[in-house]
């Protein structure tokens, strides 16, 4: 039995400790927003937060998250998260959409650390999130827009 806190709720799961966190989120907890892409921490689509830091949940054994706070796209309620979701909709960012939850989870880390990120900051933060539809230009635009929304300056 492994106990962890997912999106503010304490959960206990009966799984092999080596099970990737991603599978626990999707299979055991039915949180389908986090996606499986490569299974090797190469594409970023499985990105979630553990104790406030980005992790690739496809390579993180659930035992490494025991007792920690896990946040998935479903629980991204911080103000910058809401701004990101709004900006993503405004700029119509997704094409197929598969990678987008991972993109937003990474972008949320950036906005937490930089209220007004530069293009270089965005490149440095988002380089590990691959989008096969190549929506990168809209992603960059949406991050700038979300930063402005989070600062309260733009409507």
């Amino acid at each position, binding site marked *: 039995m492994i106990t962890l806190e997912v999106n503010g709720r304490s959960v206990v799961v009966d799984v092999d400790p080596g099970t990737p966190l991603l599978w626990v989120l999707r299979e055991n907890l039915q949180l389908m927003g986090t996606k499986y892409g490569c299974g090797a921490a190469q594409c970023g689509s499985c990105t979630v937060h553990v104790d406030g830091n980005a992790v690739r949940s496809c390579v993180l054994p659930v035992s490494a998250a025991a007792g920690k706070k896990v946040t998935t796209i479903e629980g991204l309620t911080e103000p910058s998260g809401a701004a990101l979701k709004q900006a993503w909709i405004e700029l119509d960012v997704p094409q197929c959409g598969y990678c987008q939850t991972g993109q937003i989870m990474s972008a949320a880390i950036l906005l937490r650390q930089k209220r007004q990120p530069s293009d270089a900051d965005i490149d440095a933060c988002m*380089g590990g*999130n691959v989008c096969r539809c190549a929506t990168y230009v809209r992603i960059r635009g949406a991050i700038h827009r979300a930063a402005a929304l989070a600062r309260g300056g733009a409507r």
Partner: protein
Amino acid sequence: MRRTLDRRVLLVASLAAAFALAQCRAAGPDPAAQARSAAAWATVYEVLQHPRCVNCHPAGDVPLVGEHREVHPQNVQSGGNGMGLFAMACPTCHRDENTPGRHMPPGAPRWHMPPRNTPLVFEGRGARELARQLADPSQNGNLSPQQLLEHVKSDPLVLWGWNPGEGRAPVPVPHRTFVAAFQDWVEGGCRVPE
């Protein structure tokens, strides 16, 4: 008065640095030990030039990967403190242990690069240059020779070089041979080879 104080602080700092260097170099007054120190450096240098060591001691801000020292994909950067940037901090993918399987992220506790202010570059450094750099506390992260020895003996990130996970070549020189050579190098006064 402030300028005088600044000068005193500078003088004390300079003397301390010179003393540390002199201690390192004078630690092997015995000529035989000094000769052993200089000779041992070849083994130490061979290890430090292996991709398992060089890849996280690159000449720039970007770590390297693989046997051919290619630039780390995904635009990974050291981030100044050596821990990566934003959502691309090292622990985003690198855990405390290797992830099983080929092409999976390697791992060890506190996976990181040297910080930008003490980059401790191995890549492209000649044998003499690297020996001089490693012996100089102002360039080696302010470590004494004994602390350097402890680092190569027991730091999990160093030990990882001999347990790098599936699909990566370990350092071919055995770790105990490396430590013995490093000890000879230190005990003989951290000699810079001729």
